[in-house]
């Protein structure tokens, strides 16, 4: 196994641990049984991203984005097809009665922002903890729009994409979500090096 292969394996393992942690936090926070399927990781160029998203539907996408900077910099997005995002939020918040006449769509966006925050934090937090990276993070941002518009900003300057697919299972519904991590070539190199150091102790 080459050092690069080993780094890839380690990254996939850390992401898997992060997704597991995310499921734990979601379950504890929501008091409902949320399962996240074993994630699959792919490393690709930005040009291949649009065709590789599993969350893409006919309409718009909903995403939660967080930027990070430090030893490696970039941004991470949790992406759903908007229709699926609505179903997911409705399912995990079933039984929560809104007290007033609040706009359900806005409230849904806020809830999805928290779900994205939990998932991205768990993955980035796990990676950063293990390789002892000190990162600064932006607050999470909810985005909704057409795929090309939604992914364009984050893609600018990115040389490598880490695409993680996982399936959210709540009650009887299953919703595909993509975690997209945008990294510059330099940041990806730094991450590989840090993972190499971690593997070699």
């Amino acid at each position, binding site marked *: 196994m080459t050092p690069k292969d080993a780094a890839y394996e380690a990254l996939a393992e850390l992401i898997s641990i992060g997704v597991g942690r995310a499921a734990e936090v979601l379950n504890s926070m929501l008091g409902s049984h949320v399962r996240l399927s074993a994630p699959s990781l792919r490393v690709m160029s930005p040009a291949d991203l649009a065709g590789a998203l599993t969350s893409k539907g006919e309409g718009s996408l909903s995403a939660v984005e967080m930027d990070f900077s430090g030893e490696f910099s970039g941004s991470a997005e949790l992406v759903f097809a908007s229709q699926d995002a609505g179903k997911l939020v409705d399912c995990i918040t079933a039984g*929560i009665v809104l007290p007033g006449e609040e706009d359900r769509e806005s409230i849904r966006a806020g809830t999805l922002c928290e779900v994205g*925050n939990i998932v991205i*934090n768990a993955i980035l937090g796990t990676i950063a903890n293990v390789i002892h990276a000190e990162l600064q993070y932006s*607050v999470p941002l909810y985005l909704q729009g057409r795929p090309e518009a939604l992914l364009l900003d984050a893609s600018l300057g990115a040389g490598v994409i880490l695409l993680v697919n996982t399936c959210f299972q709540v009650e009887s519904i299953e919703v595909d979500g993509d975690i997209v991590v945008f990294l510059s070539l330099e940041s990806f190199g730094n991450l590989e090096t840090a993972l190499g150091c971690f593997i070699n102790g």
Partner: protein
Amino acid sequence: MASEVLAEAPILERLPVGIFTVDRDWLIRLWNRTMAEWTGIQAGNALGKALGGVLHHFSERRYLSRLEDLMEGGPPVVFSYQLHGELFPDRGGRGPRRVRYCTASSLPGSSGILFAVEDRTEVVALVREARAEVSRRLAAEEELRSALAAKEMLIREASHRVKNNLAMVVSLISLDSDKSQDPGVQAILADLASRIDSIALIHELLYKGEIGADVGLDAYLEKLCATIVGAFAGEGLEVGLTTRLEPARLDLDSTLYVGMISSELVTNCLKYGRMPGKALALEVGLHRMADGACLELLVADNGPGFPGGGQPSSGSLGWSLVTMLVGELGGRIEVLPGPGAATRIHLPERRREPLSPQYR
């Protein structure tokens, strides 16, 4: 460090966002004026107290477990309204419940946690109103579309009936014409039938789909000329018809008037343009003038021209009708020099005044 944040307290005090901080021992170190106003918990009752003692939900394990990473510089944590509506007490508790979102971030040097509470009640209400307005407008649009479709159907139906009734009138005129032995009476009745036919034709176009406030004048004239020439061809007259019609749209009334003018001029050519041993060539043109505001209608033949080589007879009913209708449309007539009879009508593309009631 927490002390740096505290040094910024005068600024944080005035922010329209609820701000509070805790140190590494979970003790509240900053509680701004907005937090006091929103929760009814004064700074004196919060500062130096344990977070879970002031905001009770934060003593629960599920909240602490998410916040603990922040003490080590972990990523920001959000608490959304739908999942954590009871996180902050509401002062007084009257009126609609406030929609508040909370973001917790690590303080520099992992010296504690900064909480920012944002009130989005008004934004959410505005979004709700905007959505309701969009829904209302969509419903109104749908209603209008349905009403328009129903109106179009009625226009088609009415036009169909008018066309059929006019066709019946033409048939009755033909029957009466057949009974008469007087060629003068027959000619008058034939002209009358032709004029009614030109009116019937526009109704045919209407029920076949040319619906709208404006009607395609070029399509109407094309069909009108072909119909009139076809009727004369039935009488054994050989006619070479050339039409050069640029696309133009006029309101229904104006289109009808231009049709009647064209019908008179074309019929005149067919009647008086024949010369022995020479095929009749008839040209009908419709052009938009360079200024874009005027249309030019041309009807010309290769016949002997107007009687006496001059102007058409002002005493004839057909020419009187043409003069009257052109005047009504605000246009003007130009009789062109021969050979043949050639008339050019200049028409404003948009009528300025409504047509006189007697012509409607």
